[in-house]
């Protein structure tokens, strides 16, 4: 199949773009979207690996891995959005402070 080289290279660059979103931005939604793009990049690479020309059937293992990965990433995304939302309600901020002072909160077993 012809799609192999361009899409594999795309996957590599996509990962870097997602990484930029994750470490270069401060807004948590942007960072989360960056992580999702990184995940998509890996999935794209895995699916490129599974292709085997027209006549032979594809390698099912990467496809199964990607299916598992998609479900896991939607779970993490949902959980992360919940955390981001509660963080916003509690602190009024959409980003994590880069402060170095000690965490002053109490743990739950007080």
């Amino acid at each position, binding site marked *: 199949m012809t799609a192999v080289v361009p899409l594999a290279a795309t996957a590599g660059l996509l990962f870097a773009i997602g990484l930029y979103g994750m470490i270069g931005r401060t807004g948590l939604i942007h960072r989360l979207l960056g992580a999702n793009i990184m995940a998509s990049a890996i999935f794209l690479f895995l699916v490129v690996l599974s292709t085997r020309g027209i006549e032979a059937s594809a390698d099912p293992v990467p496809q199964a891995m*990607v299916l598992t990965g998609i479900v896991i990433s939607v779970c993490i995304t949902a959980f992360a959005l919940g955390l981001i939302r*509660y963080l*916003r309600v509690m602190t009024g901020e959409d*980003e994590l402070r880069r402060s170095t002072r000690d965490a002053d909160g109490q743990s739950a077993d007080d």
Partner: protein
Amino acid sequence: MIPLSPVFDVLLGLGLLWLAWRVVASRGRFTAVVLFMVFGLVMAIAWARLGAPDLALAEAAISAGITGALLLNACKAAYADPGHPQPGGPATPPPSSARRWLVYAICGGLGTALAATMAWLALGRPDVAPELRDAVSGHAVDNPVTVILLDLRGYDTLLEMAVLLMAFLGLRILMGHRDLAGLHPLPEGVPSMADSLVAMATPILLITALYLFWTGTEAPGGAFQAGALLGALGVMYRLTGRIEPLDHTPAALRLGLILGLGVFAGFACLSLIWSDWPLSYPAMATAGVALTIELAMMISIAVTLTLLFSGSAGIRLARAPVQGP
């Protein structure tokens, strides 16, 4: 004449890259989210081009049905929730230019290295192991991806069901924060037109989901795609107010949440009776057992995804659907 498909693939790749760049570089949250939804669409085309219809189905159901709605909902929450700002000075200062350049350098270097490595590795990818081919082609279940998911790598799938459940329980723990009780995204003023669309879509979605579930053993489809589609139906119901949030989880929902994981884990233990290994299928009834597990997983996936979107401890059907203006 230049053959068309390489051109298509190159354009597809460039489109993906441009979209991804706009997603991470856009200023506004809402723009980023909408662009990310388009990214999901184009990703589905990529799966279709790469001969992975199973994944295209899952991507369609999850990105259009679940992730998109979740992200839009997060935007809404960000605009609607008042937030109680904490004293303690401004948030993070803008990053210094040295730090910015460092980030560019890391991403650029890694991207170049990865793109080269991946293209090189993809060209020389090894053949599928012959024993794997035999195991898949001689299996009672016809769809190779389903064989991997349910039998050969069934343990991963079991754990993935656990991840689903844990995502919900994690949210549930957050909801337990008493001081924030009642923080549910409530739909407001849903027009009757949307409601009638949902009413019409319900039977179609149900039939499609069951069809995907049923053909999953021999053709693309299966518990994940069907469950995600049903979860998307739940999202629609929640959006139009046909489902109301509850602040506790009724027993039936608890059962629905753990059904897939419970049946899978129970099967793993039971299989020690007829075999030396956990998670091995009885020789006579492989297809039947696989279908039972898939059914349980489909129900759990649908229930969990709906609850994850709803962001509440429980849900119930509204007595009278909301009729807006």
